[in-house]
């Protein structure tokens, strides 16, 4: 279990979660980045040169 850094809700990470992966908090909808087995941070904001 990890804690959503935005709303504090408990977020369960899938077994195959990958460090760097972007997921959404079920409670508040924030985009979060997996930083470890049980840790999350807010996902980075889109930048001007993001894309394909």
């Amino acid at each position, binding site marked *: 279990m990890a804690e959503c850094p935005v709303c504090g809700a408990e977020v369960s990470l899938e077994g195959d979660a*990958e460090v*760097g*992966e*972007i997921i959404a908090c079920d409670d508040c909808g924030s985009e979060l980045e997996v930083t470890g087995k049980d840790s999350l941070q807010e996902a980075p904001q889109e930048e001007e*040169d*993001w*894309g*394909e």
Partner: protein
Amino acid sequence: MKVGFLHSIIRKEEKLLLEEFRNREGIELIKIDDRQQFFDLHKNDFDIDVIIERCVNHSRALHSMKIFSDHGIPTINNPEVAETCGSKFLTTQALIKAGVKTPRCFLAYTPESALEAMEHLGYPCVIKPTTGSWGRLISKVNDRDAAEAILEHKQILGSYHHSIFYIQEYLEKKGRDIRSFVVGNDCIAAIYRHSEHWITNTARGATASNCPVTQELHDISVQAAMACGGGVVAVDVFETDEGYSINEVNYTMEFRNSIDVTGVNIPEKIVDFVLKEGRQ
């Protein structure tokens, strides 16, 4: 074989690619997060046979691949492809030079000359930043009033790269365009992108359906890819009364919406290609 996987955030595409690499025998996968990495430009700190680039930032992809490539490590794609595809201007130049059909395009440096170019081209026309993606900051200009407003906004509010005006003829797409996927010498799949909006990026909500890869579509897609340096690329194709016209070529392609609708295992084809390059 040691495969370097250059990335920042891990999206659906990266996840599928990582999974595919991990399913292969004899592969050591080395994840390189561009946010944590610094580079000693004088020496090769990497014991890696091949790099696949999956950065979300164009600038980081471009710099990193140049470094790896100059150390003699093959990169997918190579830095020249990233440079060309990362600029709509360089892409258009490459297409024109290779004789691949592409919408009529003008370039100008001042709002006055850009307005003149638009008047010359006629309305509607499209103005785009030369670097950018996901349909952001591209504008359909319907008349002279709109042209003047957009140019003034760009001049006053725009950052440096909005000071180059890339102006394209508007093509009526009848609610869809084509995205084709090229790996090496093959166009492996294609989708139609449908939208009621004139911008048909799937990142902007367009829906995908399978587009059969005819010989004609295959050939122009591969020609467009080769014009930009080849590798693993996704090509934006317009259908016109005079045949296909290539809008742009993308070098870090997104394909999450295209696997199920085409039935083609795109990550598998990409991984095959990367491993083949790594073996050479």
